[in-house]
């Protein structure tokens, strides 16, 4: 591949062929399919929470003192909490918070991180080294710690927690894209379009960017899980969503007070976090095998 220069039709044909093979590899991976299944289930829970939840009004500040601390039963699958709300309904609504949180955080991280990585990778010079030095600063601290510090100076709300996490997350994408660009820059097809007079922006967006998608997609999938872990952690510490918001982390923090007698309060939201993160990890691992990409799977904070 490195030596041959393909015409666009051929590239498209090879890409289609690659996709087809990738899909068949993906289908043969049981774990990746399980991961996809879990994620689809969680996504369905999030989207249809108002319809599926047996007590949708319990998502907020509802109280029913006649029904407090009911253990799991047919009426309340996951039991009820200290003010009589149905934990199952709240867990369903919690999926909305965690998933949308992950999507927003990663969108922001992508929007900041990818352009910076492209710039730093394609052009060398002081701008590029400045960008990379700045990412060093951000990566000098485990991301959860930085997110905590940022969340602390802001008011503890869900939006601010989101801002805090996104603020710490983008350097990973800058680094990833930077590394990809450095190696792609040398490839024959980039050289070729440079030799026919394509401008730098054209090369960066038309030639290089499309080729960085597979590691980015794999990383995004794995990161969804990690972002959810950090977000629930912040909420657990009281630096994210506040009661009565049905965020999983907040629910665990609230439920912990009534342990050990009312074990279900903290157990089920935690199980939901675990399953969601597991789902994204399984899918991410599967995608990594499919796309055959090597990425840094290590993060400072999650």
């Amino acid at each position, binding site marked *: 591949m490195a030596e041959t220069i393909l015409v666009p039709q051929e590239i498209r044909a090879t890409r289609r062929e690659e996709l087809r093979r990738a899909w068949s590899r993906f289908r043969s991976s049981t774990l990746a399919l399980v991961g996809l299944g879990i994620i689809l289930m969680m996504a369905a829970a999030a989207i249809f929470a108002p319809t599926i939840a047996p007590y949708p009004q319990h998502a907020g500040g509802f109280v029913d003192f006649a029904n407090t601390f009911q253990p799991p039963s047919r009426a309340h699958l996951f039991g009820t909490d200290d003010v009589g709300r149905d934990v199952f309904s709240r867990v369903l609504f919690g999926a909305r918070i965690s998933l949308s949180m992950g999507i927003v955080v990663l969108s922001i991280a992508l929007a900041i991180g990818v352009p910076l990585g492209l710039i730093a990778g394609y052009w060398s010079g002081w701008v590029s080294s400045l960008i990379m030095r700045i990412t060093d*600063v951000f990566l000098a*601290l*485990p991301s959860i710690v930085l997110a905590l*510090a940022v969340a602390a100076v802001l008011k503890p709300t869900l939006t601010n927690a989101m801002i805090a996490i996104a603020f710490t997350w983008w350097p990973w994408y800058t680094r990833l894209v930077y590394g990809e660009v450095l190696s792609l820059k040398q490839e024959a097809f980039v050289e070729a379009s440079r030799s026919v007079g394509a401008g730098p922006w054209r090369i960066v967006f038309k030639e290089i960017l499309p080729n960085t998608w597979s590691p980015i997609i794999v990383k995004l999938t794995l990161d969804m899980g990690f972002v959810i*872990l950090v977000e629930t952690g912040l909420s657990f510490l*009281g630096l994210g969503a506040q009661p009565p918001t049905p965020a999983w982390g907040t629910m*665990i923090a609230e439920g912990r007070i009534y*342990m050990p007698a009312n074990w279900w309060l903290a157990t089920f939201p935690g199980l939901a976090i675990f399953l969601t993160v597991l789902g994204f990890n399984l899918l991410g691992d599967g995608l990594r095998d499919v796309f055959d990409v090597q990425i840094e799977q290590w993060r*400072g904070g999650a």
Partner: protein
Amino acid sequence: MSFRTYLLRRLLHIIPALLGLSILIFVLSRVVPGDPARLALGPDATQEQVEQLRREMGLDKPLVVQYLRYMGGLFRGDFGFSLRTRRNVAQDIKEFLPATVELTTVAMLFAIALGVPLGVLSAVRKDRPEDHISRILALIGVALPRFWLAILLQLLFAYYLGILPTIGRGPAPPVRLTGIYLLDSLLALDFRAFLIALKHLILPAFALSVGSLAQIMRLVRANMIEEMRRDYVLAARSYGLPERVVIYKYALKNAFSSALTVIGLSYGFLLGNAFLVETVFAWPGLAFYGVDSLLFKDLNAVVGVTIVIGVAFAVVNLLVDIAYGYLDPRIRYET
């Protein structure tokens, strides 16, 4: 480039990053909405009292001056005054840091002590039941929210089984030398105190370590599988070396040294999660202190804790680099 120059270059890389971090955190802490002086004195204080405190804290000066003053103090061991504990943050850090060092170190050692053998087992018995079980455990380990696991462990071992303490570090050993209870009790030859300290450590250290354990296991497995295919492993077999020497010496040393840098990174992992686990176990460490400071908006403490953690993270990674150079001579001699 010799190994020493390499380390020196790493160091030169770390220092600007840490300085940048201090600026970042400092600026963040000063642009905070709300007046820290007012916050400290409460709503009943008069405007004059607030102004007085602002002057004392130097909050009336420009940001640059505040930062330079702060950094100047930092190098003299003065981390500023804590509004919450009413003493110098340096003192607080000195008091709380050892507990976190103890917890994270034990957790890391635990992760290595269990993750490496499991990784090797998985690689050697690739695609057999042992491999599948270890891999599934690793997948679970990565995905478990540490604070939730901590709560479940408390529930099981402390409440239902009643065999381990729920919270805290237990009574301090009679002599405080390092502040690390395990070490202090050993140095005082007080084995009962050692045992008590250990009992308090087990649950939090385990809860903290699962993620790193799983990551180390996965990495060692992947590296071992790669190593077992190498020519020198085949050659070692051809000389008639026993399989245990081939695996545990010839393949593992290579696999482990390439896993090392990542072990350093995963220490950051542990430091981050210590904030959650220490909270659950009321473990009186730096992270516990940090969380309280965060919630109280005790900004000098927040800045101090973050900088100390940044430095700790950097130091661990540097140590790992040194260990890597020691284990793998190619780093020392080549390039």
